[in-house]
């Protein structure tokens, strides 16, 4: 393959959309952290996020030299690595916001559950590629469920409800693509609903229950857990059509909006850039997700197809839950907005996911005339 051909096989649309989102991210993080940081550290967050973006671009380019298919060879090893990593978090992790999610590695605190998402996509894709069209009975499905269930429970135990739900979303997206019997899928949902009371009583922690109750009615606890939702809705709503302008969002600049550069960054976009800015951002996500599905459709093999579906499911689920949360139609679950929220673990994961998509597209046979 000549380099010229390689260039033609670059998904410019996807890169442009992701680039656009990351640009908006850097601007918004800059605005959100501008006032609330001591002046000597004022650009720390933007700088850090920018540096990791550049480093990750290097990783993406480096990864392009390999064929994504080599990943399926690592399926089993990655799965075991993943379990060990999650166990390590459980025993070595640092507690933050009531959950053990962090591992300190030198100057960088890593969030293994972020990496765990992409690892699980690779593992699932390598296992599920042989099951296409064969998921008709419960007995077909159970082994796969068990395969995902172990890491799922480990993440849930951290507790990181958000990431475990992401696992579920990836799992459902993949088995759906594998052609799972629709009735079987429905049955699974019904089972989940039936198990809900058990999960409520035995699995969910108090603060998670509160989050769900608050989601149903934020005014249950307006100054506690409901506070985030209320302030976030106020921030978005008060942005109106054109927003209050960068650095001028009263909700985010005056600290009424907590976590404004991480989980609630979409509210800053809504407040400062208005409906116009928020819609542009959502349309950029639409482009990314549509490209993800397109790449899945054009993938040269089932492994590639499932990888692309898993990645797209993951990203779509993040966007839905995060934006839904800031807009008050989803419970607060601590799921970051891909490419937007400050956080190097998530950024690295998401950029690697895009690298895989680009890799699949690059090695797509069908479009080679």
């Amino acid at each position: 393959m000549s380099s010229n051909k390689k260039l033609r096989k670059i998904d410019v649309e996807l890169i442009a959309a992701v680039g656009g989102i990351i640009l908006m991210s850097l601007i918004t993080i800059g605005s959100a952290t501008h006032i609330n940081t001591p002046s000597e550290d004022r650009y720390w967050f933007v700088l850090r996020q920018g540096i990791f973006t550049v480093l990750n671009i290097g990783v993406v380019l480096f990864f392009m030299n390999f064929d994504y298919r080599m990943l399926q060879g690592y399926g089993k090893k990655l799965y075991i690595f993943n379990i060990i990593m999650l166990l390590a978090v459980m025993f070595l992790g640092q507690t933050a916001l009531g959950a053990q999610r962090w591992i300190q590695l030198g100057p960088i605190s890593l969030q293994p559950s972020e990496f765990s998402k992409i690892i699980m996509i690779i593992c699932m894709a390598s296992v599920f590629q042989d099951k296409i069209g064969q998921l008709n009975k419960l007995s077909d499905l159970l082994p796969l469920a068990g395969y995902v269930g172990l890491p799922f429970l480990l993440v849930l135990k951290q507790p990181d409800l958000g990431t475990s739900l992401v696992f579920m979303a990836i799992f459902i997206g993949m088995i759906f693509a594998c052609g799972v019997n629709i009735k079987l899928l429905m049955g699974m949902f019904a089972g989940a609903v039936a198990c809900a009371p058990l999960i409520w009583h035995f699995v969910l922690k108090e603060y998670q229950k509160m989050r769900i109750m608050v989601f149903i009615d934020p005014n249950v606890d307006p100054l506690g857990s409901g506070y985030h939702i209320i302030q976030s809705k106020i921030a978005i709503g008060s942005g109106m059509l054109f927003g209050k302008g960068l650095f001028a969002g009263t909700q985010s600049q005056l600290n009424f909006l907590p976590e404004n550069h991480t989980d609630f960054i979409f509210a800053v976009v809504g407040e400062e850039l208005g409906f116009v800015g928020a819609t542009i951002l959502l349309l950029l996500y639409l482009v990314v997700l549509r490209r993800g599905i397109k790449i899945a459709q054009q993938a040269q093999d089932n492994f590639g197809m499932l990888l692309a579906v898993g990645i797209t499911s993951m990203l779509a689920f993040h966007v839905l839950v995060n934006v839904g949360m800031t807009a008050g139609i989803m419970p607060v679950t601590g799921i970051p907005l891909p490419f937007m929220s400050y956080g190097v673990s998530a950024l690295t994961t998401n950029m690697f996911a895009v690298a895989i998509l680009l890799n699949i597209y690059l090695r797509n046979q069908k479009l080679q005339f």
Partner: protein
Amino acid sequence: MNTNNIEYNGRLQVISYIIVLVIAVLIGRIGYLQLYDGEYYASLADGNRIRIVPAVAPRGTFYDRNGTMMVTNRPGFAVSLLPLTAPISDEVINRLADLLKVPKGDIEEKIKAHVGFDPIRIKTDVGPELLSIIAEQKDLYPGVVVEVLPIRDYIYKEQAVHVFGYVSEINDAELEDKKNSPHKYKMGDIVGKAGLERVYDLELRGEDGGEQVEVDVTGKPVEILGRKNPIPGSDLYLTIDKDIQAAAERAVDEQLVAVGARAAAAVVMNPQTGEVLAMVSRPSFDPNLFVGGISSKNWNAINDNPNHPMDNKAITGEYPPGSTFKIVTGTAALAEHVVSPEEQIFDSGKHWIVDKGNADGEALGYINFEEAMAHSDNVYFYEMGNRLGIDRLEKYARMFGLGKPTGVDLLFEAEGLVASREYKEKVFDEDWYLAETFDAAIGQGFNNVTPIQAAMVMGEIAADGKRFKPYLVDRIVDYEGKTVKKFKPELVGQLDVEPQHIRLVQQGLKGVTKYGTAASVFRGFPVEIAGKTGTAENPHGRDHGWFVAYGPFDNPNIVVAVIVEQGGYGSTSAVPIGRKILEAAFNIPDPAKQAELERQRQLAQQAQKNKENNSNNRAQEQPAVVNNAPAPGREYGAANGRR
């Protein structure tokens, strides 16, 4: 791969649709929040960040008739809490309760009751020590702000407190009462609770201003967005004369001690205009105690006093007029021609029809109208009552304006009571007896007057039958110096009596201070005074002593009414007060005080001379100075010309 391929391609298409749907739902949701509900959330965002820090308008100042400041404001500090988006922590409330010595429950109640975004006032008029603690330990008191407030300052404390009234924080009942007022009263407002402070609250209060301040989530001010300067309240220029008021209060206080009484009232007016020059009620209280919220100890001291310090007895106290009512009876007798001024009536010590006599059983023999008035002869006036009958007595009492409020610009003025058949029938369901007419004729029995009514009656005689409505405020002047309201004398009545008859009454009243019941006290008084003493029987204890007077006799511009509750004879309890008030009104120097002033002046001059001599070494000139003192007469003459 082919069949599977087609199969999963369909599925992928479904996922693609789902993604479009998800994004569409999200765009729809934020569109709803931002476009449909945007205004609402924008107002919530402003509510989050914008706080109003009010600037309280200074209340109007009270000036006396000569422009002397009597009530003003001084700068004070209040400690307040800014309502935050997050709840105020228990720790801060505890700390604040300890520091300000305010019960924690009170603070919590105030926070709970508060709506809006202006500061919650926890304690007003806080001393500088506490302020510096709050300023130094800012981090321990998040959301706590110090407001600068004008604090009401009654410069002369108790002086004229019953006229001025007092101010304090508005209560729920008042808030409800004032719902329809043109001014929008709100919780925490300082309002006039009594006296002129209450009557003219709207004019006095001005309009509060404030600053719109942008705050962050901890309530820390970030930027001032806008400012509205407060409009100070209008000033009251009173008819009160500070010197006469002070003299009247001093005279009353000294006399209360002298006669061992506890309550008294005095009113000084100009009979030609109705201007009230002084108004005293005892016991009294210090209105400054109420300004920052009164302590329960002070409140109990006021509230438990059996003589009701808060009452303005000059307008709310109703007493039998006693012999001061003989002014009414005498005027009626002359006007109705039931007696001629020359007719002599024999006083044998008691009346021949009803067995009633003079107080001490003395008998004055044959006396005419003027002598009877001067000596306050009961037998003579019983006979006048006998000849007039109760109905005509009632008619003249009402003609003088008794039985209804005088209309002075204060609240809760009492009406008094005029003895009448109708009243007795209504209240006791009984016919009228002649003996009751006798009682009524000398101001006992059912008759009741307030001190201001007593002054009004005397004032009508002084002003040749004209009755002016008493008033306390000459003009209201706004902060720009513009007179917004000017009060003029208001003629509200005229005695339907021939002038010569009024003159006869005047002559009789002059006799009171010349040779009658007040003569001993007024001996040597340089201004001609008409007066009338009274001793009102009091079923609950000692008699009340009355004195009413006016002067100068030929051109009266001062009328005085004094009552000493349970002071005994009017001539010994009330008359000395009356004299001292008249002395002050006519600027007649008190001999004892004059001597003291003279001595001090000489000492001062001596000291001055000594100093000069010491520096100049001319000690021999010293004795020449002693005779250089100013003549006392000069000062008196000059002062007398003032009125």
